[in-house]
């Protein structure tokens, strides 16, 4: 039988490091049911026995304010692990014990893993382990998780401790509260109010702390008793505000810290130096968060991250793309022409290839971010930028997601959306997730390049700067709008620890990176496969009727029949890259012209085409004709598709099929196109629905399809409004 143990503790105390040390990083990573907080489980086989280990999210407290806290507490209460291993940072003992006290109040079996003893020693902090253990009444094991020192002692202690029942720790919270708690305890025990789950006194404590989860559960279970407890709580609150100018919630926290202080004061801890003296970290901070140097260095770090992610991943991205085009080439040769082949190549291989193409990018991005996060620099970035982002209802940490998504033109919203994970505050995170797709990702750039070359020759740089500014201003204003409407709510407090700088371990970085990448591949992959088949179907069906097909076929035969025989043999036998004679070239280009017309007609007749035609009724307001509409619909698959679909849609029509004009030149000549239309189209491209890979990621990261659907609907509506405005105002000015 394996023994279930849970690792719990403050953020950054070393839980994951110990977890990896114990399980050898053989783990299952998932999410807790219904929420996107990571859940890690693993097995540890050792001399002491076999253990089932779970890595709980890091929390500072056990109130039910943040998702992490709810998850950790629910797990402890519902799953009842044999032992909670509470990892505390020995170099920061006093604050870490605040959570330990709360475990002990709950009366669950707990032991202290006193981690980072090496750091404590270096800082001249001496801890009397035996005394601490005696005063708290729980086992305390000193250790260094990074090297695995102390882990066997820990496991032995766990085995020894599992059969001993733990009694809730009783602390005095001051006369008033103690008295009221006694009264509550009687009521709770008499009515067996939630006592099947929690200790009686603890439930009372939660009523004083206004714990939303317990209050709700209590009201559900037994309204009458809950009402009585609420009354006692309110009475005490009034009394304490009147006489002591404080409130129970504050008093309880004060007394917990008071208890910790009284334990530590009994010669448990000794400091060789003043503990607030400047550490090396603080010296580094003097430079890195300096008023003038700080922002400059930050720009440098962001640029480096960007460079790293997008430059170095280009090579492996190329390999993956090469692999998929090879597979699609092989398939092309192996299968007979037809619907099945078209579905396998355009639907499945291109779709899956599109997703897998992002994998190296995502890995590099997570590697870079993990480095910045694990080293402690991310917290400093948030610190420096918070004042700016807060104006728009965001958080200092939002910057990372914006930059990755294309805040400096050329990023990608898929890793950007995932980068929002580093945000711990739910409302700010949601607002960030929903606005990062407005950034100019790499796939939008070909669209701009095409339009700028055709309609704003020589102004490449100016237009790019303008577009970058528009996307930032737009994203921040929309964030503000969302935060004052659908995601309304007070700013989450910026009470944040600046952890000491640490050099990340390679193992830690690798695990971090791989885990997140694998989740992306697994979950996003399946959904995306389905959607890409759907999009393929929309652009393929219902196909052409036999009559139309026959017409194209007869036009083709008309050409081949009139061509001289030696020209036809030349075409058939020639190598792919070989130079053809002028006569042969004429024939092939005439044939290609007909093929092109056929695919245009098919596209026009497809569901996507019909949508495009239908949309023309409104899209003319923004200057878009049905071909542009199809291209934009196709752009939902991936923004690059806008250019290739425009290519298909404009390759023919009124223009001479043999013309060698580039797509840009052809657009420039087309009636209805001009700089104003082009600019309106660029505005639309910035703001409209994110590509579906991003949409899938948004739904995964928010845990609901609702927000994904919102981002498609809202963004498209916004984009349309803005592009109509641009087109109409622009037309007035130009004419």
């Amino acid at each position: 039988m394996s023994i279930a143990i849970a690792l719990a503790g403050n953020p950054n105390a070393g839980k994951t490091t110990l977890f990896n040390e114990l399980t050898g990083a053989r783990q299952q990573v998932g999410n807790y049911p219904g929420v996107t907080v990571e859940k890690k489980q693993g097995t540890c086989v050792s001399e002491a026995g076999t253990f089932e280990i779970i890595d709980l999210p890091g929390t500072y407290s056990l109130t039910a304010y943040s998702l992490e806290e709810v998850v950790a507490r629910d797990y402890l209460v519902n799953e009842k692990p044999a032992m909670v291993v509470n990892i505390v940072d020995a170099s920061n003992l006093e604050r870490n014990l605040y959570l330990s006290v709360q475990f002990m109040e709950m009366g669950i079996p707990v032991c202290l893993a006193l981690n980072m003893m090496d750091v404590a020693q270096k800082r001249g902090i001496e801890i009397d382990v035996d005394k601490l253990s005696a005063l708290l009444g729980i086992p305390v094991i000193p250790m260094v998780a990074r090297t695995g020192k102390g882990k066997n002692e820990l496991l032995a202690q766990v085995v020894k401790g599992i059969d001993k029942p733990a009694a809730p720790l009783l602390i005095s919270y001051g006369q008033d509260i103690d008295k009221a708690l006694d009264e509550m305890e009687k009521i709770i025990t008499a009515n067996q109010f939630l006592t099947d789950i929690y200790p009686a006194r603890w439930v009372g404590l939660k009523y004083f702390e206004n714990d939303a989860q317990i209050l709700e559960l209590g009201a559900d279970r037994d309204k009458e008793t809950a009402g009585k407890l609420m009354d006692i709580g309110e009475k005490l609150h009034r009394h304490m505000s009147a006489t002591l100018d404080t409130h129970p919630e504050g008093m309880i926290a004060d007394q917990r810290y008071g208890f910790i202080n009284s334990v530590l004061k009994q010669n448990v801890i000794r400091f060789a130096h003043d503990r607030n003296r400047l550490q090396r970290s603080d010296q580094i901070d003097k430079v890195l968060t300096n008023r003038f140097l700080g922002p400059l260095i930050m720009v440098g770090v962001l640029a480096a991250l960007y460079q790293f992610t997008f430059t170095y991943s280009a090579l492996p991205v190329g390999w993956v793309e090469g692999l998929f085009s090879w597979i699609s080439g092989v398939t092309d040769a192996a299968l007979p022409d037809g619907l099945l082949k078209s579905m396998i190549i355009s639907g499945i291989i291109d779709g899956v290839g599109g997703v897998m193409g992002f994998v190296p990018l995502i890995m590099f991005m997570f590697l870079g971010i993990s480095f910045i996060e694990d080293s402690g620099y991310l917290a400093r970035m948030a610190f420096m930028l918070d004042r700016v982002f807060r104006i728009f209802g965001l958080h200092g940490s939002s910057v990372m997601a914006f930059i990755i998504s294309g805040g400096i033109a050329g990023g990608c919203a898929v890793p950007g959306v995932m980068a929002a994970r580093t945000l711990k505050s739910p409302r700010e995170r949601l607002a960030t997730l929903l606005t990062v797709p407005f950034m100019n990702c790499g796939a939008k750039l070909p669209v701009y390049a095409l339009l700028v070359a055709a309609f704003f020759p020589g102004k490449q740089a100016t237009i790019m700067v303008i577009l970058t500014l528009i996307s930032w201003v737009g994203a921040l204003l929309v964030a503000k709008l969302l935060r004052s409407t659908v995601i309304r709510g007070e700013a989450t407090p910026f009470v944040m620890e600046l952890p000491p700088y640490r050099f990340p371990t390679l193992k830690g970085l690798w695990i971090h990176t791989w885990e997140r990448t694998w989740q992306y591949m697994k979950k996003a992959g399946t959904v995306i496969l389905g959607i890409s088949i759907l999009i393929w179907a929309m652009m393929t069906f219902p196909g052409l009727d036999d009559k139309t097909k026959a017409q194209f076929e007869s036009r083709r035969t008309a050409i081949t029949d009139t061509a001289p025989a030696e020209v036809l043999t030349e075409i058939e036998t020639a190598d792919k890259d070989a130079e053809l004679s002028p006569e042969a070239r004429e024939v092939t280009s005439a044939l290609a012209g007909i093929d092109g017309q056929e695919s245009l007609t098919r596209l026009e007749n497809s569901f996507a085409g019909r949508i495009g035609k239908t949309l023309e009724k409104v899209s003319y307001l923004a200057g878009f004709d049905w071909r542009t509409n199809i291209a934009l619909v196709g752009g939902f698959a991936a923004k690059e598709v806008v250019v290739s679909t425009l290519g298909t849609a404009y390759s023919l029509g009124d223009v001479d099929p043999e013309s060698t004009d580039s797509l840009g030149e052809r657009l420039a000549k087309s009636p209805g196109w001009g700089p104003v239309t082009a600019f309106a189209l660029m505005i639309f491209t910035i703001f409209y629905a994110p590509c579906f890979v991003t949409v899938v990621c948004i739904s995964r990261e928010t845990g609901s399809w609702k927000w994904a659907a919102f981002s498609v609907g809202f963004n498209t509506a916004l984009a349309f409004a803005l592009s109509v405005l641009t087109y109409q105002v622009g037309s007035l000015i130009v004419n």
Partner: protein
Amino acid sequence: MTVINLRQMKRNQTGIITSVKAQGEMGRRIRDMGIVPGKEITIQGRAPLYDPVALRIMGFTLTLRNNEADYIQVEVE
């Protein structure tokens, strides 16, 4: 000895917390991090735009926005 608001403290100034008025989520988060009466804090620095503020308490560094610091009274020399 005077009691002032945390927002008014200067860089490197040290003081003892006398009261924390915040309630609800903000109050909870502030207290969870050890901002309770009786604790000594030292201002370590401010962000380039003067907000948030970084302070040293119980041997670690904590950041707070100015409007959160407003709830905290500190006794200084």
